[in-house]
């Protein structure tokens, strides 16, 4: 498989030079200095690395960069959404390390389901870990953003 030489990130074409099987997360963070997506587990279990690929949430730590080539990649740096304000207003964070992934996952949910039930939110967000335990506030923030949508 040839090396990956370009990615489209947050609407901009970015030249890169990466082995095709490097995790997308590594390319975003180390090659493109987009550090909003975080490393948390390396096995797609915590959601801190979540980005959107053509609008669908993906765990960038287990996504080889070749799978992202040719797709629209959206990271937290490219998101401007009422959910971010809702997180601030609801105080839906403590250390904040999970927040990027939570917001990216939440934005994907609201796009698919503009008025999610609590059960929808729990099901969709259950792969994202907040070790500080702000889950109920995150649910409230998503509900708030849905109201304003």
């Amino acid at each position, binding site marked *: 498989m040839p090396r990956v030489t370009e990615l489209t990130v947050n609407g901009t074409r970015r030249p890169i030079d990466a082995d095709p099987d490097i995790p997308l997360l590594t390319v975003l963070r180390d090659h493109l200095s987009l550090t909003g997506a*975080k490393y948390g587990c390396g096995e797609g279990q915590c959601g801190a690395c979540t980005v959107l690929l053509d609008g669908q949430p993906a765990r960038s730590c287990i996504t080889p960069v070749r799978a992202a080539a040719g797709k629209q990649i959206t990271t937290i740096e490219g998101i401007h959404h009422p959910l971010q304000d809702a997180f601030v207003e609801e*105080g839906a964070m403590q250390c904040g*390390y999970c927040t990027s992934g939570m917001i990216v996952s939440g934005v994907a949910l609201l796009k698919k389901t503009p008025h999610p039930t609590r059960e929808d939110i*729990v099901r969709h967000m259950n792969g994202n870990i907040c070790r500080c*335990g702000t*889950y109920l506030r995150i649910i409230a923030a998503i509900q708030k953003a849905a109201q304003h949508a």
Partner: protein
Amino acid sequence: MPDTPARIEPERYELTAPPAYRFAVDRRDFLGLLGGGLLVVFSAGAQESGRARRSEALPQDLDAWLHIGEDGAVTICTGKTEVGQNIRTSLSQAAAEELHCPIASIKLVMADTALVPYDMGTFGSRTTPTMAPQIRRAAATAREALLDLAAEKWNVDRAKLSIADGKIACAGAAAPIGFGELTKGQKIAKTIAPDAPVARPLCQSVPKLAAREIVTGQHKYTSDLTRPGMLYGRVLRPPAFGATLANLEAPSLPGVTVVHENNFVGVAAPDARTAAASLRQIKAEWNREPVPPGAAFGPGLYEYLKQTSEPGQPDVHGSVADGMAAADIKLAAAYTVAYIAHAPLEPRAALAEWDGGKLTVSTGSQVPFGVRRELASAFGIPEDRVRVIVPDAGAAYGGKHSGECAVEAARLAKAAGKPVKLVWTREEEFTWSYFRPAGLIEISSGVRRDGSIAAWECHNYNSGGSALVGKYDIANQRNVFHPAKSPLRQGSYRALAATANHFAREVHIDELAHALHMDPLEFRLKNLKDERLRAVLHAAAERFRWGTGNSKDKGIGIAGGFEKNGYIATCAQVDIEDSRIRILRVVQAFDCGAVVNPDHLKNQIQGAISMAIGGALFEQIRFGDGQILNPRFSQYRVPRFSDMPEIEVVLVDRPDLPSAGAGETPIVGLAPAVANAVFHLNATRLRSLPLLEGGL
């Protein structure tokens, strides 16, 4: 019996291990600088962290706490670290309230050892009771100095001056004047009066200061930092704890620095992938230490801890034998808690850079000055050549007191002659950090038919002494903490052993109430005089509608307690689905004195309850043969959205009392409340954490 001071050091388990590695020496000077304007200083020795730790002497220089520049910028320095408990906001609030200025005009410099006064570290819920008043004193000193300057400038009596919104005004005079204008051209130093009284907090829900940076992904954690020419580090880990390197074959790899010194083997490479690949090419042979039988997870662990334990120092009131002789009902039961991991979502990370003989390390630690000491010791250089900076970190929960990652990054950077960033993998974080101690707690007790507790004897093996002695009025009791030989490296964890000791005590109390056919709340209140603990029990019970006799109230449990000057009561309702405990509803009342920031306090309490669900229901480190067997989130279950009950928090504000820290104590009530609720539901008495271990 006079009041017995706590004999058990609350932070006993803070790690004091010497550095894992010691490296060769070189020297050069390091200086810190401060600007002009108005400077508020404090002589060392009386500062917040004013007790020397063990053999360490406190620095004897003057420490700068607050500076108001000629541009009006207010800079405040503290050695405390922000790890999600939101003290960047609460400490800025304290300063803004004293200076009567917008919180946005305050710059809080945290945890940069080159800029801030010495501090022991961010643990033990000490920031709110001790650092906040200190910052209030510094800010009040500055405010008074500014008022003096204004009075002098306008040549008026100070009584005519008022201060608001970052400006000083004079009745009937010209426009209000800003802090910067007053300090322009000045070089004033003021000393804080150490015992000056401090105002109580205003109880305001100021939003988290860094929230906007966080929701846009702009906040830089240690793991997000870079430096020009920076390399990526990786460390070769032994196959088991205690293993020593017998033989090493490391191929020469272009552009890759390989370090092998004693037991340390690591690489630094231009990118993370090359670093990982280089590590795989190193062939190492290790000598493994034999692991004693029993030093593995499972039921045998607790017997092992008991067998390896020391006698301990008993805390004795009255005579347990006399109390037992007077008891009508006697009970004895053993409770266990497993080792659990902090698992902060940001694993340990460090970025180290040498400049000649000077070393600068950014790292997510709760103890920046301790890490500085570790680094100085590891490299044999004076501490004043080491600068440690802690960017606001991706959580810690007591798990980031040590500096091993910083030392490793610094060693690699020294060899490479370039900055090196080292971010531990999740597996490394689960394996090579340290754990909340496991423990065995044996309680025997006696009660009279009238519901009074006549005797209480409690032995805690290994888990720790925090909150070992409860608040119940028991004339005859004996409580002993027995240190033991832990098979795992163990250390601080949010609320330390208070979780284990509250679990054992509050479940045992429930067992006594059941034996007496008494309501568990009524039984507690009968044996409690402490007004604040009674108040939170009443507050939680009232909100929960405890004891209303509703037949729907199946599976309910209650627990209460006290730790670090915080009073807590927790009510929980559970159901059981497919042999799984499902927590439906939690009401928790908390009194930590005067409330600083009610919304953030609620956030801490909600978070502590959520985190407590893990330790209560399913978190457990599995280990054996010197290895951690579940070092991944796919194998180590932590609470998720689907585990969340309805949580109601009742704040019992005591504006008449000093504020206590609130990040830890709210974690202790959940496990016993849930265990008691399970018993209420189906008469199964669970005495081990996690509760699902052993099953239903």
